[in-house]
């Protein structure tokens, strides 16, 4: 399928600099919010298990790698 040149350039730039300077509100009001702690955490767990806002750690698809 043909994609516009501007979109291809934006993807190229995006994967190069991992930029997340723009945002989409699609997930902002999701009820499936990341928890500060996992259910498996110890009570005194000090780690923040959420990704910080603007993180470039784009979670990939774990389902694809299962099995």
């Amino acid at each position, binding site marked *: *399928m*043909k*994609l*516009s040149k501007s*979109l*291809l350039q*934006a*993807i*190229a*730039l*995006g*994967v190069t600099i*991992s*930029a*997340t300077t*723009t*945002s*989409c509100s*699609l*997930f*902002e009001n*999701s*009820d*499936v*919010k*990341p*928890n500060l702690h*996992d*259910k*498996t955490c110890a009570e005194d767990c000090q780690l923040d298990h*959420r*990704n910080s*806002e*603007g*993180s470039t*750690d*784009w*979670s*990939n*698809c*774990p*389902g*694809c*790698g*299962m*099995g």
Partner: protein
Amino acid sequence: MPKIYSSIACNLDNHLLSAALPLFAEESVEAIEWSFDTLYKQRNIPDWFIELLTAFGQENRLVGHGVYFSLFSGKWTPEQEAWLQQLEKVSGHFQFDHISEHFGFMTGANFHAGAPIGIPFTRRTLQLGQDRLQRIFQACRCPVGLENLAFAYSLDEVKAHGQFLDELLEPVNGFIILDLHNLYCQLQNFTIPFEALLELYPLHRVREIHISGGSWEDSALHPRQKIRRDTHDDAVPDEVFQMLSAVVPRCPHLKFVVLEQLGIGLHTPASQEAFREDFRKLKRTVQSLSTPPPETVANDFLPKELCPLGPAPEDLSLHRQQQQLSRILETAPDLSAAREELQSSDLAGSAWKVEEWEPAMLETAMQIAQKWKNGFA
């Protein structure tokens, strides 16, 4: 046979997108599959990724592939309810041609952790699955399907999987994603001929095919035996391409053939080139096989009639068994301890048939559950 789209699984991953970019530029990617529920940690999604999804969606070339719903959890959870609400919202933004999920239940204690593992094929689990597929349809209002599971505890389970999928999908007139690497794992791990296995699948329900690579895991139990795992971190084996050639002409309603690979296997220029070569081979193969078989009837894969849904059904006995199994798989120090614990659990002497599980596959289930118990890191 309608046009078959040569597609890639496309998620927000730098390495994967870097590998795919030349394919997009040469206009050879005909559709994309997006795992819409994997961005739960990410609030900021780049506009260009949204634009990419929108572009394919507007051409009816975007399909959604869920990961976390856990279709067969004995207990209905608020997270599943929220997952459906999110699916409804995402489906309002993007035009999905269909939505699919994985077969099984997730072992993890956390909604976003664990691995999909099989369940007993009983009347009760069938009803649970049918109800939840209908809920997925009501959220997305487009065809709904399930992917065959790579993992199985026994040969009997392998042989019964296709028939159970058929019954499960009947009320929503759903489709099957036939993952050929998942079948390849079963051919290797259970020594069953491909043709014999294929005969057991309702191929008229196949609307999508997955191909991918995987890896071999040593078995501590049988040092000479290797277990095939569906890890999606390597190139597609030749055998899987041969399976693709054999199966495509037998699937009258096939619409998408998708190459899946994780970004973790695409860190080097060589691996990215191998990914592109796999895709081009996929496309050549599909194009060489796109001959319509005679006497095929179109199927829109939409439900003909649905019953009104009440409160989501639960099976708390199944839930308790799943909790026990997850704990054993995730924490047992070795195979022998796991077998002992299973024998003293609620699963002993039940429809799970734990007494018939292949020891090497139980060992594999432990490795999978322990690998994914903390989610995707």
